[in-house]
């Protein structure tokens, strides 16, 4: 479909309830930010999934590359003291 070449791509983030983070839910094509927001409402929140929506132009996202993995992430593998893994969370805390 030729429209896909014409309309820019947007990444959609939805916050499902107050206090939680916005989560990436997918992407869609739209003419501008306002239209992206409306389409996001129609495509991703039809079943009461959200209380807040962010839209970001996909071309505005700078992403880490696969080939950077060894220099980016491997060095922290042998530094367990950086992880909060030895703490036990109280039961009441559900979202951490």
């Amino acid at each position: 479909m030729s429209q896909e070449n014409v309309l820019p791509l947007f990444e959609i983030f939805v916050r499902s309830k107050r206090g939680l983070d916005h989560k990436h839910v997918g992407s869609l094509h739209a003419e501008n930010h306002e239209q992206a927001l409306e389409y996001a409402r129609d495509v991703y929140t039809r079943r009461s999934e959200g209380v807040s929506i962010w839209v970001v132009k996909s071309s505005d996202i700078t992403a880490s590359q696969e080939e950077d993995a060894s220099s980016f992430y491997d060095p922290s593998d042998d530094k367990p003291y950086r992880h909060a893994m030895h703490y036990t969370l109280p039961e009441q805390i559900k979202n951490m």
Partner: protein
Amino acid sequence: MGDVISNNQTAIQTFVLAEADDALIYGQRLTEWSYSAPYLEEDLALSNVALDYLGRANNYYEYASELDPAGRTVDQLAMLRDSREFTNLLIHELPIGDFAFTMARQFILDSFYIEYLDVMQHSTDQQIAAISAKSVKEAQYHVRRSREWILRLGDGTEESHVRLQNALNELWGYTPELFLQSSAETELLASKVSVDRSQLKPAWDKRVDAVLEEASLSRPEVSWQVSGGRDGIHTETHGFLLAEMQHLQRAYPGLKW
């Protein structure tokens, strides 16, 4: 409330049935875009609007069924009446045309309903008030969308501008009927169940004129106008719409999901 209802029950049923028919016929028209809109996002957006109208129709039919002297069910009211028994305003039944026509009509209707439902949510009839209060929120979203499309198409390419202007010219003669009072509505005016539609015209004019001007479109001249929907006199495509919509219920009477 009981007295108001019993005194006016016939008029209220006639009135509610007309509201239901408006919503059902228009919702059915909009569903024709499902799976064939210009692209996926718009397809879902249009289908959402269609579902809002079908939901609204269902609410009105349920109430109409409750008040129905013959005790007809929602399905019987929606699926087993003939064209002459439907009292929807003509603008709702017109074929979808091209995308510009669809959006022009949507904008005309949204600009009307946003005013109309806002008043109707204060109807002295609790059911009508509740349905209107729910629907006005939907209309507020609908008009946000259709307004942007009018600006986009009006200020877009030469072709989109011409198509939209043609659509408006074609639709204009159907707009006065939105502001005509049916006899049921007139009867219900004193008890404040209904509203005087003609009083909504200035607000509608203002809303529509502002957007048309911003979109560099001209407001069509009122050189002709038609009405008859409330009396069951419809345009020639109405029967075809019913044939498609009612086919299942007529082929398999009493069929349930």
